[in-house]
Protein backbone atom coordinates (compact mmCIF):
# COMPACT_ATOMS: atom_id res chain seq x y z
CA UNK A 1 0.00 0.00 0.00
CA UNK A 2 1.35 3.41 -0.99
CA UNK A 3 1.93 5.83 1.87
CA UNK A 4 0.39 8.98 0.42
CA UNK A 5 1.36 11.05 3.49
CA UNK A 6 5.01 10.41 2.65
CA UNK A 7 4.47 11.88 -0.82
CA UNK A 8 3.22 15.21 0.43
CA UNK A 9 6.68 16.72 -0.05
CA UNK A 10 6.47 16.00 -3.75
CA UNK A 11 3.09 17.69 -3.89
CA UNK A 12 4.35 20.78 -2.05
CA UNK A 13 7.43 20.95 -4.30
CA UNK A 14 5.21 20.77 -7.39
CA UNK A 15 6.78 17.54 -8.56
CA UNK A 16 3.54 15.70 -9.22
CA UNK A 17 1.18 16.16 -12.13
CA UNK A 18 -1.99 14.74 -13.59
CA UNK A 19 -3.77 11.84 -11.93
CA UNK A 20 -1.05 11.38 -9.29
CA UNK A 21 -1.48 14.99 -8.19
CA UNK A 22 -5.28 14.66 -8.08
CA UNK A 23 -4.93 11.50 -5.98
CA UNK A 24 -2.60 13.25 -3.54
CA UNK A 25 -4.92 16.24 -3.29
CA UNK A 26 -7.91 13.98 -2.62
CA UNK A 27 -5.88 12.20 0.07
CA UNK A 28 -4.75 15.48 1.65
CA UNK A 29 -8.36 16.70 1.88
CA UNK A 30 -9.31 13.63 3.88
CA UNK A 31 -6.13 13.25 5.97
CA UNK A 32 -5.98 15.42 9.11
CA UNK A 33 -2.19 15.33 9.36
CA UNK A 34 -1.67 16.29 5.70
CA UNK A 35 -4.31 19.05 5.91
CA UNK A 36 -2.61 20.43 8.99
CA UNK A 37 0.75 20.45 7.26
CA UNK A 38 -0.61 22.07 4.10
CA UNK A 39 -2.31 24.81 6.16
CA UNK A 40 1.13 25.95 7.26
CA UNK A 41 3.35 25.08 4.31
CA UNK A 42 1.18 25.41 1.22
CA UNK A 43 -2.33 26.70 1.96
CA UNK A 44 -3.09 27.04 -1.74
CA UNK A 45 -2.71 23.27 -2.09
CA UNK A 46 -5.14 22.72 0.75
CA UNK A 47 -7.58 24.93 -1.16
CA UNK A 48 -6.89 22.82 -4.24
CA UNK A 49 -7.45 19.67 -2.17
CA UNK A 50 -10.79 20.97 -0.93
CA UNK A 51 -11.73 21.98 -4.48
CA UNK A 52 -11.09 18.56 -6.01
CA UNK A 53 -14.57 17.36 -5.12
CA UNK A 54 -16.37 20.42 -6.55
CA UNK A 55 -18.17 19.33 -9.71
CA UNK A 56 -17.40 21.20 -12.93
CA UNK A 57 -19.77 23.93 -14.03
CA UNK A 58 -22.12 23.36 -16.93
CA UNK A 59 -20.46 24.52 -20.16
CA UNK A 60 -21.78 27.64 -21.82
CA UNK A 61 -23.70 27.34 -25.07
CA UNK A 62 -20.96 29.10 -27.01
CA UNK A 63 -22.97 30.02 -30.11
CA UNK A 64 -26.09 31.15 -28.25
CA UNK A 65 -23.97 33.06 -25.73
CA UNK A 66 -22.02 34.83 -28.46
CA UNK A 67 -25.19 35.79 -30.33
CA UNK A 68 -26.67 37.25 -27.15
CA UNK A 69 -23.68 39.51 -26.44
CA UNK A 70 -24.53 43.22 -26.45
CA UNK A 71 -23.60 45.37 -29.42
CA UNK A 72 -20.19 46.93 -29.06
CA UNK A 73 -19.87 50.66 -28.83
CA UNK A 74 -17.70 52.12 -31.56
CA UNK A 75 -14.16 53.04 -30.43
CA UNK A 76 -14.83 56.77 -30.89
CA UNK A 77 -17.63 56.48 -28.33
CA UNK A 78 -15.16 55.81 -25.53
CA UNK A 79 -12.99 58.80 -26.50
CA UNK A 80 -16.07 61.00 -26.78
CA UNK A 81 -17.34 59.79 -23.37
CA UNK A 82 -13.94 60.42 -21.79
CA UNK A 83 -13.74 63.89 -23.34
CA UNK A 84 -17.27 64.70 -22.14
CA UNK A 85 -16.39 63.57 -18.61
CA UNK A 86 -13.32 65.82 -18.56
CA UNK A 87 -15.36 68.76 -19.85
CA UNK A 88 -18.08 68.25 -17.24
CA UNK A 89 -15.46 67.94 -14.48
CA UNK A 90 -13.79 71.14 -15.66
CA UNK A 91 -17.11 72.98 -15.78
CA UNK A 92 -18.02 71.79 -12.30
CA UNK A 93 -14.63 72.80 -10.94
CA UNK A 94 -15.03 76.22 -12.51
CA UNK A 95 -18.59 76.70 -11.21
CA UNK A 96 -17.76 75.52 -7.72
CA UNK A 97 -14.28 76.90 -7.54
CA UNK A 98 -14.74 80.41 -8.80
CA UNK A 99 -16.90 81.87 -6.00
CA UNK A 100 -14.60 80.20 -3.48
CA UNK A 101 -11.54 81.80 -5.00
CA UNK A 102 -13.26 85.16 -5.26
CA UNK A 103 -13.68 85.32 -1.50
CA UNK A 104 -10.97 86.18 0.97
CA UNK A 105 -8.99 83.05 1.92
CA UNK A 106 -10.61 81.05 4.67
CA UNK A 107 -8.38 79.17 7.05
CA UNK A 108 -9.32 75.70 8.14
CA UNK A 109 -7.46 74.62 11.21
CA UNK A 110 -7.48 71.94 13.85
CA UNK A 111 -8.18 72.95 17.42
CA UNK A 112 -4.53 72.83 18.45
CA UNK A 113 -3.67 75.32 15.75
CA UNK A 114 -6.31 77.91 16.68
CA UNK A 115 -4.84 81.38 16.78
CA UNK A 116 -4.04 82.93 20.13
CA UNK A 117 -5.55 86.22 19.10
CA UNK A 118 -9.16 85.10 18.93
CA UNK A 119 -11.23 88.10 20.00
CA UNK A 120 -13.90 88.11 22.67
CA UNK A 121 -17.24 87.05 21.26
CA UNK A 122 -19.69 89.77 20.28
CA UNK A 123 -22.68 89.98 22.64
CA UNK A 124 -24.99 88.95 19.86
CA UNK A 125 -22.68 86.29 18.45
CA UNK A 126 -24.62 83.36 17.05
CA UNK A 127 -24.64 80.11 18.98
CA UNK A 128 -24.78 76.67 17.38
CA UNK A 129 -25.70 73.47 19.12
CA UNK A 130 -24.07 70.12 18.64
CA UNK A 131 -25.62 67.43 20.79
CA UNK A 132 -25.62 68.68 24.36
CA UNK A 133 -22.92 71.28 23.71
CA UNK A 134 -23.22 74.87 22.58
CA UNK A 135 -20.63 76.72 20.58
CA UNK A 136 -20.24 80.45 20.14
CA UNK A 137 -19.45 81.56 16.62
CA UNK A 138 -16.83 84.27 16.19
CA UNK A 139 -15.88 85.70 12.83
CA UNK A 140 -12.85 87.92 12.43
CA UNK A 141 -10.00 88.75 10.14
CA UNK A 142 -6.42 87.94 11.12
CA UNK A 143 -3.21 86.67 9.51
CA UNK A 144 -3.52 83.12 8.28
CA UNK A 145 -0.94 80.38 8.53
CA UNK A 146 0.84 81.69 5.46
CA UNK A 147 1.00 85.23 6.91
CA UNK A 148 -1.61 86.66 4.55
CA UNK A 149 -4.82 88.22 5.79
CA UNK A 150 -7.49 85.55 6.22
CA UNK A 151 -11.07 85.29 7.32
CA UNK A 152 -11.44 83.12 10.42
CA UNK A 153 -14.59 81.49 11.70
CA UNK A 154 -14.14 79.98 15.16
CA UNK A 155 -16.61 77.84 17.02
CA UNK A 156 -15.74 77.86 20.68
CA UNK A 157 -17.23 76.16 23.67
CA UNK A 158 -17.50 77.96 26.97
CA UNK A 159 -14.29 76.38 28.22
CA UNK A 160 -11.82 77.61 25.66
CA UNK A 161 -11.30 78.57 22.10
CA UNK A 162 -10.21 75.14 21.19
CA UNK A 163 -12.94 73.12 19.69
CA UNK A 164 -13.03 73.66 16.05
CA UNK A 165 -11.99 76.21 13.53
CA UNK A 166 -13.59 75.99 10.17
CA UNK A 167 -15.09 78.11 7.47
Amino acid at each position, binding site marked *: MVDLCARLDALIA*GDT*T*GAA*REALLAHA*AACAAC*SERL*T*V*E*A*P*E*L*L*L*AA*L*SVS*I*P*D*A*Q*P*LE*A*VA*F*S*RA*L*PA*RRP*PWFMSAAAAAAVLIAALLAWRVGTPERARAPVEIAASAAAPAFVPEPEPDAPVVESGAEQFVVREFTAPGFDGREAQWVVLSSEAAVSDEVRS
Partner: protein
Amino acid sequence: MADTPELRAAQLAQAARAAARGDREAFAVIVTLTQPAILRLATRVSGNPEEGRELAQEVYLALWKILPRLDLERPLMPYLYRATVNKAARLIRRRPPVIAMENPPEQAGADPRTLMLGHQLRRALAKLSRKERLVMALTALDGKSPSEIAELTGNSPATIRVLLLRGRKKMAEFIKGPSRG
Protein backbone atom coordinates in the same frame (compact mmCIF):
# COMPACT_ATOMS: atom_id res chain seq x y z
CA MET B 1 -11.46 20.79 -32.95
CA ALA B 2 -7.82 21.45 -31.98
CA ASP B 3 -5.31 18.66 -32.47
CA THR B 4 -2.14 20.18 -31.03
CA PRO B 5 -1.43 23.12 -28.72
CA GLU B 6 0.11 25.01 -31.66
CA LEU B 7 -2.90 24.46 -33.89
CA ARG B 8 -5.18 25.40 -31.06
CA ALA B 9 -3.22 28.61 -30.39
CA ALA B 10 -3.32 29.50 -34.09
CA GLN B 11 -7.08 28.87 -34.21
CA LEU B 12 -7.55 31.01 -31.13
CA ALA B 13 -5.49 33.87 -32.53
CA GLN B 14 -7.39 33.77 -35.81
CA ALA B 15 -10.74 33.70 -34.02
CA ALA B 16 -9.66 36.59 -31.79
CA ARG B 17 -8.80 38.78 -34.78
CA ALA B 18 -12.15 38.04 -36.43
CA ALA B 19 -14.07 38.54 -33.18
CA ALA B 20 -12.32 41.86 -32.65
CA ARG B 21 -13.89 42.96 -35.92
CA GLY B 22 -17.32 41.93 -34.60
CA ASP B 23 -17.61 38.34 -35.83
CA ARG B 24 -19.80 36.57 -33.26
CA GLU B 25 -19.28 33.13 -34.78
CA ALA B 26 -15.56 33.61 -34.25
CA PHE B 27 -16.23 34.64 -30.66
CA ALA B 28 -18.15 31.38 -30.20
CA VAL B 29 -14.99 29.58 -31.34
CA ILE B 30 -13.00 31.43 -28.63
CA VAL B 31 -15.55 30.37 -26.01
CA THR B 32 -15.54 26.77 -27.20
CA LEU B 33 -11.75 26.52 -27.21
CA THR B 34 -11.10 28.21 -23.90
CA GLN B 35 -14.09 27.44 -21.69
CA PRO B 36 -12.96 24.07 -20.31
CA ALA B 37 -9.95 25.75 -18.67
CA ILE B 38 -11.79 28.93 -17.71
CA LEU B 39 -14.83 27.13 -16.26
CA ARG B 40 -12.64 24.80 -14.22
CA LEU B 41 -10.55 27.65 -12.83
CA ALA B 42 -13.61 29.85 -12.17
CA THR B 43 -15.40 27.02 -10.38
CA ARG B 44 -12.44 26.16 -8.19
CA VAL B 45 -11.59 29.76 -7.31
CA SER B 46 -15.19 30.67 -6.50
CA GLY B 47 -15.95 27.38 -4.79
CA ASN B 48 -19.14 26.44 -6.59
CA PRO B 49 -20.19 25.57 -10.13
CA GLU B 50 -23.02 28.09 -10.40
CA GLU B 51 -20.80 31.01 -9.47
CA GLY B 52 -18.06 29.58 -11.64
CA ARG B 53 -20.39 29.64 -14.63
CA GLU B 54 -21.47 33.20 -13.88
CA LEU B 55 -17.85 34.26 -13.52
CA ALA B 56 -16.97 32.69 -16.84
CA GLN B 57 -19.85 34.56 -18.49
CA GLU B 58 -18.60 37.82 -16.98
CA VAL B 59 -15.09 37.10 -18.22
CA TYR B 60 -16.30 36.46 -21.77
CA LEU B 61 -18.53 39.51 -21.73
CA ALA B 62 -15.57 41.64 -20.66
CA LEU B 63 -13.44 40.02 -23.37
CA TRP B 64 -16.05 40.79 -26.02
CA LYS B 65 -16.04 44.45 -25.02
CA ILE B 66 -12.29 44.83 -24.82
CA LEU B 67 -11.24 42.69 -27.79
CA PRO B 68 -10.90 45.57 -30.28
CA ARG B 69 -8.47 47.27 -27.89
CA LEU B 70 -6.44 44.17 -26.93
CA ASP B 71 -3.01 43.56 -28.38
CA LEU B 72 -3.85 40.45 -30.37
CA GLU B 73 -0.21 39.74 -31.12
CA ARG B 74 -0.07 38.44 -27.58
CA PRO B 75 -1.78 35.19 -26.55
CA LEU B 76 -5.32 35.43 -25.25
CA MET B 77 -5.20 32.83 -22.48
CA PRO B 78 -3.19 34.93 -19.97
CA TYR B 79 -5.79 37.69 -20.28
CA LEU B 80 -8.60 35.17 -19.66
CA TYR B 81 -6.84 33.65 -16.66
CA ARG B 82 -6.13 37.06 -15.12
CA ALA B 83 -9.70 38.23 -15.68
CA THR B 84 -11.11 35.03 -14.15
CA VAL B 85 -8.97 35.16 -11.03
CA ASN B 86 -9.50 38.90 -10.48
CA LYS B 87 -13.25 38.74 -10.97
CA ALA B 88 -13.39 35.78 -8.58
CA ALA B 89 -11.41 37.74 -5.99
CA ARG B 90 -13.87 40.63 -6.22
CA LEU B 91 -16.76 38.20 -5.78
CA ILE B 92 -15.13 36.56 -2.74
CA ARG B 93 -14.33 39.91 -1.09
CA ARG B 94 -17.98 40.93 -1.45
CA ARG B 95 -19.20 37.73 0.21
CA PRO B 96 -20.22 37.87 3.82
CA PRO B 97 -17.56 36.46 6.15
CA VAL B 98 -19.78 33.57 7.20
CA ILE B 99 -21.15 30.73 5.15
CA ALA B 100 -24.88 30.66 4.53
CA MET B 101 -26.73 28.11 6.62
CA GLU B 102 -28.11 26.56 3.47
CA ASN B 103 -25.18 25.27 1.48
CA PRO B 104 -25.29 24.75 -2.27
CA PRO B 105 -26.58 21.28 -3.22
CA GLU B 106 -23.12 20.02 -4.18
CA GLN B 107 -21.87 20.87 -0.70
CA ALA B 108 -24.95 19.69 1.18
CA GLY B 109 -23.21 16.69 2.72
CA ALA B 110 -19.90 18.43 3.37
CA ASP B 111 -18.44 18.84 6.81
CA PRO B 112 -19.13 22.43 8.04
CA ARG B 113 -15.50 22.77 9.22
CA THR B 114 -14.28 21.85 5.75
CA LEU B 115 -16.62 24.39 4.20
CA MET B 116 -15.44 27.08 6.60
CA LEU B 117 -11.81 26.24 5.89
CA GLY B 118 -12.41 26.41 2.13
CA HIS B 119 -14.16 29.74 2.62
CA GLN B 120 -11.25 31.09 4.66
CA LEU B 121 -8.70 29.89 2.14
CA ARG B 122 -10.57 31.57 -0.71
CA ARG B 123 -10.70 34.80 1.25
CA ALA B 124 -6.97 34.49 1.90
CA LEU B 125 -6.39 34.00 -1.81
CA ALA B 126 -8.52 37.04 -2.59
CA LYS B 127 -6.37 39.15 -0.26
CA LEU B 128 -3.17 38.55 -2.21
CA SER B 129 -1.78 40.94 -4.77
CA ARG B 130 -3.00 40.37 -8.33
CA LYS B 131 0.23 38.71 -9.44
CA GLU B 132 0.47 36.46 -6.38
CA ARG B 133 -3.18 35.51 -6.70
CA LEU B 134 -2.82 34.55 -10.33
CA VAL B 135 0.27 32.45 -9.65
CA MET B 136 -1.34 30.73 -6.67
CA ALA B 137 -4.57 30.00 -8.52
CA LEU B 138 -2.84 28.65 -11.61
CA THR B 139 -0.42 26.56 -9.57
CA ALA B 140 -2.83 25.13 -7.08
CA LEU B 141 -6.19 25.14 -8.77
CA ASP B 142 -5.14 24.58 -12.35
CA GLY B 143 -2.10 22.40 -11.64
CA LYS B 144 0.28 24.46 -13.78
CA SER B 145 4.03 24.32 -13.20
CA PRO B 146 6.10 27.48 -12.54
CA SER B 147 7.58 27.26 -16.03
CA GLU B 148 4.13 27.00 -17.63
CA ILE B 149 2.95 30.02 -15.64
CA ALA B 150 6.14 31.86 -16.56
CA GLU B 151 5.39 31.29 -20.22
CA LEU B 152 1.79 32.39 -19.79
CA THR B 153 2.56 35.55 -17.88
CA GLY B 154 5.84 36.56 -19.50
CA ASN B 155 7.78 36.32 -16.22
CA SER B 156 10.77 34.15 -15.43
CA PRO B 157 10.23 30.84 -13.57
CA ALA B 158 12.33 32.28 -10.73
CA THR B 159 9.90 35.20 -10.38
CA ILE B 160 6.99 32.78 -10.35
CA ARG B 161 8.64 30.77 -7.56
CA VAL B 162 9.19 33.94 -5.52
CA LEU B 163 5.55 34.95 -6.00
CA LEU B 164 4.47 31.46 -5.00
CA LEU B 165 6.51 31.48 -1.80
CA ARG B 166 5.36 34.98 -0.89
CA GLY B 167 1.74 34.05 -1.58
CA ARG B 168 2.02 30.91 0.53
CA LYS B 169 3.41 32.89 3.43
CA LYS B 170 0.68 35.51 3.23
CA MET B 171 -2.08 32.94 2.98
CA ALA B 172 -0.70 30.96 5.93
CA GLU B 173 -0.53 34.13 8.01
CA PHE B 174 -4.09 35.02 7.07
CA ILE B 175 -5.34 31.56 8.08
CA LYS B 176 -3.41 31.67 11.36
CA GLY B 177 -4.71 35.17 12.14
CA PRO B 178 -7.29 35.76 14.87
CA SER B 179 -10.72 34.59 13.60
CA ARG B 180 -10.65 36.52 10.36
CA GLY B 181 -12.67 35.42 7.47
